[in-house]
């Protein structure tokens, strides 16, 4: 089964056997968060992430481009394994189109891992890229970027890597990057997801 892009939302809404309504997705997210998730103090999470970011800035001697790349690759390695945890806990079927994918990411995935629901907006005309706006970000509580970092560092860049890795495992080759961040003085925190292409299902070696 392939994931198609560019189909309108109304067409997929007619198909009741697949995930169509965003309300269902939201409910799945909330149920899994409430009943099937072991939780831990978010502040410990914030402090741990802060400790690793500041450690990286020190190790790379404040070369923030390298820090961004390292955060991205750490996120990527998390994402390729996180997707299995996600699918196992939510049992969400294959998404019909990219719009549904965006709903699943924002209402379900972020909900069951970080207990936040960013909004999906700014769809491109071809419906192959969208933005996630974060009202709250547990990674960046109490963070203030130093002057030199506030021009180059994307503090939460690990999230981009996680999304890219996870989407790649469901055959979606995407580009994920931050557009703005309140830590850098912008009005909101916006992350952009752009679909490049759908990867063909690869046959495992040794099978036909």
């Amino acid at each position: 089964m392939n994931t198609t892009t560019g189909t309108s939302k109304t067409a997929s809404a007619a198909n009741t056997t697949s995930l169509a309504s965003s309300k269902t997705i939201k409910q799945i997210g909330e149920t899994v968060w409430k009943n099937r998730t072991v939780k831990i103090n978010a502040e410990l999470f914030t402090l741990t992430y802060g400790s690793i970011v500041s450690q990286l800035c020190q190790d790379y001697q404040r070369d923030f481009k390298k820090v961004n790349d390292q955060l991205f690759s750490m996120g990527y390695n998390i994402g390729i394994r996180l997707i299995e945890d996600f699918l196992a806990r939510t049992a969400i079927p294959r998404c019909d189109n990219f719009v549904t994918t965006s709903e699943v990411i924002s209402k379900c995935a972020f909900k069951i891992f970080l207990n936040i629901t960013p909004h999906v907006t700014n769809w491109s005309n071809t419906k192959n890229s969208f933005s996630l706006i974060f009202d709250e970000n547990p990674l960046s509580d109490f963070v203030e970027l130093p002057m030199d970092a506030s021009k180059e560092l994307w503090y939460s860049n690990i999230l981009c890597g996680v999304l890219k890795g996870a989407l790649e495992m469901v055959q979606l080759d995407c580009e994920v990057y931050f557009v703005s961040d309140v830590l850098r003085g912008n009005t909101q925190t916006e992350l952009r997801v752009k679909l490049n292409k759908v990867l063909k299902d690869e046959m495992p070696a040794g099978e036909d």
Partner: protein
Amino acid sequence: MAEQIINPSTTHSTKVAGQGYDYTIGPTQTLPNTSTATTSGTGFVVPTTGIYGQSLISKEKQVSLSAYAFLFQSIVSYHRDSSKNVQEIERKLNSSGYTIGMRLTEILNFRDSVPNKTGLTNMDSVAGTITNMKRRNLKILETLQYIHLTVWQYLFSRPSNDLVKSSERDNEYMIIDNEPTISQFIQHTSVQCESFTCGIIEGFLDMAGFPCHVTSHFVEETGFSNRTVYLIQFDKAVVERENLRQ
């Protein structure tokens, strides 16, 4: 922090007060004719956004344990890739936890001093509600009890399983956890991933004035294959001070 030349105190500073403390220049004076806080113009612009606008009282938010476990695993891999041997990995994990522990001493005790925490999570300044600060812990045992109960409750939502004083040496104490939360998904290798928690304890105690060294050891017991003992070795000076000031 780069070392800069500190100017002698007879220098007249060209910096206006309200632009931040500069340790090379020294204290700046409040100007005699500043206006009040809320007006901008002449006087200080006091931003209400940013970190000073957030409330220190914890909103008790939570994230999923698996998100934390993934983050922790990636930290362990990062340190593993950049180290040559097991001791170095453990040392780096320890120092990652150390920065957290240092902050916990201050923030957890401060929060305990604030009465009636409910409803204060949106106030950006809670110090006005404090009548008396909670007493600072001056004894080893009091501080360790605090870690065993409050700190563990904060980190892992339960107190630790045991707090023991070593019978052989008077500067050694042990905290025991039957099922350490953060490293439970990591397979047993020769690396002690709980060095991270050791770092948290060590940072906490160092900042509170009890310099020490903390290491973790697996001590299996029936039913608990990950049972970990955190061995806390205080500096001799701490024990001496404890004995002197009875």
